[in-house]
């Protein structure tokens, strides 16, 4: 951090208790929740729940949320929520599929898709960072605009752009688990390292925690928030491209509601969409795994998926309550 204090700083010794932090920190409650989900799954569904086959299925569906969550988590940490990620995934997959259909090279199509998505993300960033628009409302507008663009690009119900090479790479299995699932977990670990151990990560958290204090400490609030919003768009665009590789198509409804799914899980995992500066990519990933576990248990038990939404909604409210009890700001 930038040292702006004049004269010798008073020496505060902050006691460091790794074990106590592990039990009371933001990751603790989600690790506990995750363990409960696994135990419930084992008891109710049986050993099948943790079999390679079942975990592999869950992992396949988790690739997209994990990548999007790791990137958008930085926007949450910087105090600017990006609600447009679900539509961005849809837009990215539609554009990428359309370019593939027109005979573009995979690499070129991917690069162009990512650039266009970053351009769209920079519109949100300009409104939020440049004009001081409320991030929730501005990204809600971008959500709608991107959904319209997706609709425009897809035209009918879906674009079928099966690419054998891409399909083979994306659906590759390593040690009985999807390769990209392992890569997504690797990305989560990298994100955790960046968020907790690097100057950039600390700047992001400082900006999210108190932007005025961060500005006084010499951090460019605008630059950090723009970076965070663009990273969020980048994650969603990569997610959309991988989705096309997985499915071989892009549909009108691709990515619809993904933002709620991801943010509910991230909030359960210790992030907050109302105050920046908190959260940890590992906690977010565990939140996604826990929600996926709940959905998987209900699916194996053949229970209506709407109950999953009710449970996610209740978990979301419980998570924000926990966040407040842990030191988050009380409303009024």
């Amino acid at each position: 951090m930038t040292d702006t204090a004049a004269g010798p700083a008073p020496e505060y010794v902050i006691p460091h208790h790794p074990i106590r932090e592990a039990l009371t920190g933001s990751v603790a409650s989600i690790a506990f929740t995750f363990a409960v989900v696994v135990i419930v799954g084992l008891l109710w569904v049986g050993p099948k729940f943790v079999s390679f086959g079942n975990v592999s299925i869950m992992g396949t569906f988790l690739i997209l949320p994990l990548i999007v969550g790791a990137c958008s988590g930085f926007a949450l940490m910087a105090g600017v929520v990006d609600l447009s990620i679900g539509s961005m995934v849809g837009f990215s997959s539609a554009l990428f599929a359309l370019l593939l259909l027109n005979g573009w090279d995979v690499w070129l199509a991917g690069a162009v898709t990512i650039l266009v998505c970053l351009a769209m993300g920079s519109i949100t960033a300009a409104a939020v960072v440049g004009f001081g628009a409320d991030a929730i409302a501005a990204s809600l507008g971008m959500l709608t605009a991107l959904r319209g663009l997706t609709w425009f690009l897809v035209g009918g119900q879906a674009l079928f752009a099966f690419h054998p090479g891409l399909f083979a790479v994306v659906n590759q299995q390593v040690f009985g688990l999807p390769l990209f699932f392992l890569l997504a977990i690797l990305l989560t670990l990298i994100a955790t390292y960046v968020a907790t151990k690097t100057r950039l990560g600390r700047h992001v958290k400082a900006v999210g925690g108190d932007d005025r204090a961060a500005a006084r400490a010499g951090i460019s609030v605008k630059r950090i928030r723009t970076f965070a919003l663009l990273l969020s768009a980048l994650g969603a665009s990569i997610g959309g491209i991988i989705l096309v590789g997985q499915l071989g198509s892009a549909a009108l409804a691709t990515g619809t509601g993904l933002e709620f799914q991801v943010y509910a899980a991230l909030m359960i995992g210790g992030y907050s969409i109302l105050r920046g500066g908190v959260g940890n990519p590992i906690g977010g990933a565990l939140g996604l795994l826990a929600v996926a576990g709940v959905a998987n248990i209900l699916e194996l038990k053949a229970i209506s998926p709407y109950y999953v939404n009710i449970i996610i909604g209740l978990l979301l409210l419980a998570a924000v309550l926990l966040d407040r009890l842990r030191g988050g700001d009380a409303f009024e």
Partner: protein
Amino acid sequence: MSLDRAIESAPQTDATPRRFNLGGWGTGLTLLAVWLLLIAATGFYRADFLSHQTMLAIAFTMSIVGVLAIGQGIVAMSGGFIDLSQPSGLILSNLVIVRLAEAGMPLPVLIVAAVLTGMAWGFINASIIVFAKLNPVIVTLGTNFIGLAGLFLVFQLAQVPLGSDIHALGRTSHLGLPAIWWPMAILILIVGFLVPRTRYGRRMIAVGGNRAAAQARGISLKATRFATFIAAGGFVGLAAVLFASSAGPFNASSANSMQLNVIAAVILAGISLAGGRGSFWMLLLSVGFLSTIPTSLVFFGFASDRQLIFQGLILVVAVAIDGYRARKGSP
């Protein structure tokens, strides 16, 4: 987060001297000019746009969005940010209306039941917000999620019985405008008149503008939160009456698309999401302008997918202006 920042900076607005004092009518004049420009441009491009048919289409869209915007405006003005659970509340009230209409209940009973259902929904939201001390945005996001999932479990498709009183209401018109347009316009005029002129309305604005100062003067924040969310729920219930009377078969997600228009209308009307500012009368103009866009785009030959793009971009621009105004400190 920028919402909190906006709250901190909002109360200082009156300190800034203004060169041209339009008495708060600047927003209205801008809106009116943009709206007329849109109508003129579309009419110039396609003369048949300026027809009674167009007016009816716009008035129908205005009715439901307008009543929902009153509720949303009350929440925003009192410092409750946004009520994201309006779609759930609307469909819940609609379901009550349909079930009662199927049982042959008369129209007044339906209206009272719908309003009470909406108020009960608002009471649930307010209870969580007040007792758990959680931010309304998150609470209503969660209750909407739960509510929609629950509604999907309860019913697939519903519609008021054909030929019932409420079904007829959606198909009558007074003075050349749909019957459901008038309640919306009258409610906006009444609420816009009462809010700055009554004690309760002023208290609401005071809490939204500066909650600490309002509390210091003895205004209960909890009571305000309950009152505003229950009142907003009541308006959602009224909107449900208009929706049920004019809409075809609907399912649990039928109201989701309205959410964005309602929020955009509130922001464009100058009712800042930061609270404490704005006039409800402006809603007539902003709702009218936003409701003209879909019809206008159709006349320009754009497919409906283009409407979403426009709606979304308009919201981005509107909140950018809102943020800019809050930052500059001039209303």
